[in-house]
């Protein structure tokens, strides 16, 4: 697939502000700059508000208090320009793989683009599984379906909340490569616990702690980087050290 309209319009995103859930401040005065059309990785321990930040960007923030602004460099809001993929595949067990990929058009009552769905199912390597239901698939295959469903939405901004963390190491590496290829050109924000993942995929890398964000210089090579390249391993080590030194 060539560059589609969505990729051309991928915006840079700027977040500033705070989040309060149930009277507890999750973070305050946080500034996050997400460059256009690149992979931005947010690395950090549990409970510092990474997922909260992602929910805000996804527009799922009606239960989240605080003051904040989300702006884009093209001055168009993020509504309807975001696709979300989480750690859970969130596949509908009653729909086939193909119908899961087409879920977006169903809930929006739009005509379904079957040909594109089938193409994406082939691209994620599930050519023979389109008619199956998720119960018949392995965890890795299910996450591939979720990937195809995310791509089907064809949104310029993609928010990934630890999408590969439940997979075993080999499949995780495969999925990272597949996602890097298929999401190329979009503005991607990836939340992860895994320093290795951030070192492979991040074009901008932040470590998020209780006191805010620290920007880390990723290796200069283009993504996706080989997991065993010396600069990737060095970056992975540096990220892990930083994570451990967080207050």
């Amino acid at each position, binding site marked *: 697939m060539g560059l589609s309209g969505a990729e051309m319009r991928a915006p840079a995103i700027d977040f500033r502000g705070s989040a309060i859930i149930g009277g507890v401040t999750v973070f305050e005065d946080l500034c996050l700059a997400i460059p256009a059309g690149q992979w931005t990785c947010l690395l950090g321990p549990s409970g510092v508000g990474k997922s909260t930040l992602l929910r805000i960007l996804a527009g799922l923030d009606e239960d989240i208090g605080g003051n904040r602004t989300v702006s884009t460099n093209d001055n168009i809001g993020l509504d309807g320009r975001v696709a*979300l993929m989480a750690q*859970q595949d969130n596949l*509908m067990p009653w729909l086939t793989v193909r119908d899961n990929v087409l879920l*977006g058009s169903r809930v929006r009552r739009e005509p379904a683009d079957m040909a594109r769905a089938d193409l994406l199912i082939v691209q994620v390597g599930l050519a023979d599984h389109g008619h199956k239901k998720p119960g018949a698939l392995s965890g890795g295959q299910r996450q591939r379906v979720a990937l195809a469903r995310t791509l089907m939405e064809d949104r310029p901004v993609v928010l990934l909340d630890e999408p590969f963390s439940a997979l075993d190491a080999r499949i995780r590496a495969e999925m990272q490569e597949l996602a890097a290829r298929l999401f190329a050109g979009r503005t991607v924000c990836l939340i992860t616990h895994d320093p290795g993942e951030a070192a492979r995929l991040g074009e901008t890398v932040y470590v998020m702690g209780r006191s805010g964000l620290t920007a880390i210089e990723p290796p200069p090579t283009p993504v996706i980087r080989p997991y065993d390249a010396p600069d990737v391993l060095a970056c992975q080590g540096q990220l892990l050290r930083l994570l451990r030194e967080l207050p």
Partner: protein
Amino acid sequence: MTRLLAVGAVVGIFIGLWQALVVLADLPAFILPSPMRVGQALWANAELIAGHAMVTLTEVLIGLGLGAVLGAATAIGLALSPLARLVVRPMMVLSQALPVFALAPVLTLWLGYGLGPKVIMALLIIYFPVTSAFFDGLMQTPRGMLDLGRVMQGRRWQIMRHIRIPAAIPGLASGLRLAAVYAPIGAIIGEWVGASQGLGYLMLLANGRAKIDLMFAALLVLAVMTLLLHLGVDRLCSYVVRRQER
């Protein structure tokens, strides 16, 4: 096959105990007739009992159908509208404080001796369990699925239709399983209060005329009917739930 054998064994043991009780306690036939006598009464009055059973079955099935549809619709309405939850839910819970049995005479007064009040009794008795089981299911849609629907900019009703309702089918199924057992209770109470047909009516009639064997025969038919209904609904529900994921 083993299942069939097991059912046969249970029935055999039940009849054996019944016969033993009659013989050992030397019970007179007007207190507890022997299985044999009840069997004879069943055989001799087969046509009569079948006629009344059909009436009761009709009441139960219509009540079950209407109650399921109304209960499911109410659950969806409640799940869609916070205002409806605020207003209707307390009313529903309060209405459960009123025993449905107490309404039977009122319904007979208003609607006469025909099918109507029995159907409504059956409906009323299953309405709450169906609504409440399905509603709980609808409110427990996994959060990730709902997030997905919202980020996809799904419309409220489409998210209900494509995500929340399918996810709540197991809840509806457990409500319907209960309903299959409750519905006959409603119909029989309705018949006791005022009827000219039905198994409940036949039991009262037989009791009044000291035809205790006939009364037990009607009771037996009622029990078997309820059991089969429960089994049928259970099978249907299990099939639909299993089918969803295969």
